């Protein structure tokens, strides 16, 4: 099965500028880009991954929650890279900021079983030039069985996969666009290609 990612474009200035800190909204081999407000009327049957990033209009996504739930129930994947404040995904709890008393409270632990974060140094994700806090500042709490890929040192999950709440798969990442980790001079650039390979394997699982 071919990986066909539908990435919704929030249409904001950082996206226009192509700044490194923004979601990169360029089309690639596996990624098609659609304006976020075109989603409601769009035929999405050709896609198997719906991908949203941190400037997405969640008030709008909430109006589209039934379409999103149906997409999941068809066995597809939703990737969410934002702080979720509206329940536009099934069984996802709303973003909670991490309590930060000292810089090390930003530290994260990467699951040794995660193919997405394999070979990545957690310290290089969290800190740049000695400044902490670049990766995650909070989490979506979980109260059910999920596969955690990244957690804070107190155990709260930053990045997890939910295979049980729907017939599809939800990748919930309480931080910035995970496919933006593609450049740079450290191990974090392993993430984007490994994420794409992970998505391909997930689709194979769904269709076996």
């Amino acid at each position, binding site marked *: 099965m071919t990986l066909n990612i539908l990435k919704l474009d929030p249409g904001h*200035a950082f996206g*226009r*500028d192509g700044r490194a800190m923004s979601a990169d909204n360029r089309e690639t081999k596996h990624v098609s880009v659609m304006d976020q407000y075109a989603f409601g009327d769009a035929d999405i049957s050709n896609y198997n991954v719906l991908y949203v990033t941190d*400037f997405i209009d*969640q008030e*709008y996504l909430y109006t589209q929650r039934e379409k999103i739930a149906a997409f999941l129930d068809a066995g597809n994947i939703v990737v969410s890279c934002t702080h979720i404040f509206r329940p536009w995904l099934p069984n996802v709890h709303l973003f909670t900021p991490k309590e930060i008393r000292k810089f090390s409270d930003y530290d994260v632990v990467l699951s040794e079983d995660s193919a997405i974060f394999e070979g990545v140094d957690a310290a290089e994700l969290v800190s740049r030039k000695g400044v902490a806090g670049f990766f995650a500042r*909070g989490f979506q709490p979980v109260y059910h069985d999920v596969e955690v890929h990244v957690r804070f040192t107190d155990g709260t999950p930053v990045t997890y996969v939910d295979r049980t709440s729907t017939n599809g798969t939800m990748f919930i990442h309480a931080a910035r666009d995970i496919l933006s980790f593609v450049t740079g001079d450290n191990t974090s650039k392993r993430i984007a290609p490994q994420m794409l390979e992970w998505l391909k394997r997930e689709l194979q699982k769904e269709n076996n």
Partner: protein
Amino acid sequence: MRKIAVLYSGHAPHYRTFNEPKFAQYIASLIYMPQFEESMLDGMDVLIVPSQLHLATFKAIVPAIHRFADRGGIVVAFGPQPEEWIPHQNWELRETNFWWWLEPNADSGLRMVAPEHPMFRDGFLTEQACTWHQHGVFQLTAGQTSLIDMKDGGSLMYIDTTSTNGTWIVTTLDPDFHYGSYFMPATEKFLDGFFPYLASGSLQ
């Protein structure tokens, strides 16, 4: 107290910033941009146009914003401006200076050229509260008065009372995004002072 309206994009940083009670207390109307109608500005004194809006939706309401200014309204613009919509706008995108403070003899580049302006004179904002990084500058024309300059030229924040019947307060700073992203404490200091200034400060 001036009545303040804010355009709201529906994204997570804006949700946090404009629902934080200490800022929300100053917001008379939080206008979800896809549902904008010009009548929503009736009775408002200030309209804040935050950064990182859906630009195609925003462009459609720019004429209504200009009519608001022409009725004497105060328009506030935050952040980078890739679209031309501010009177006599001359935006210059620059490489963002994220790391100036790690350099030897660190200089943020800010030059406080109007310390007598009520925004600063009356204690609403300080240089420190306006200091994080910049995404670019505005080059000004006659009638636009810089409040904060950048050392390499251009303005970080200016006020324009001549292009329309109203007042434009324009800054390249984007505290709405950073505070809402739980990153960069100075942006909270900025908003702590700027909302009260808009509500009750003297314009000049």
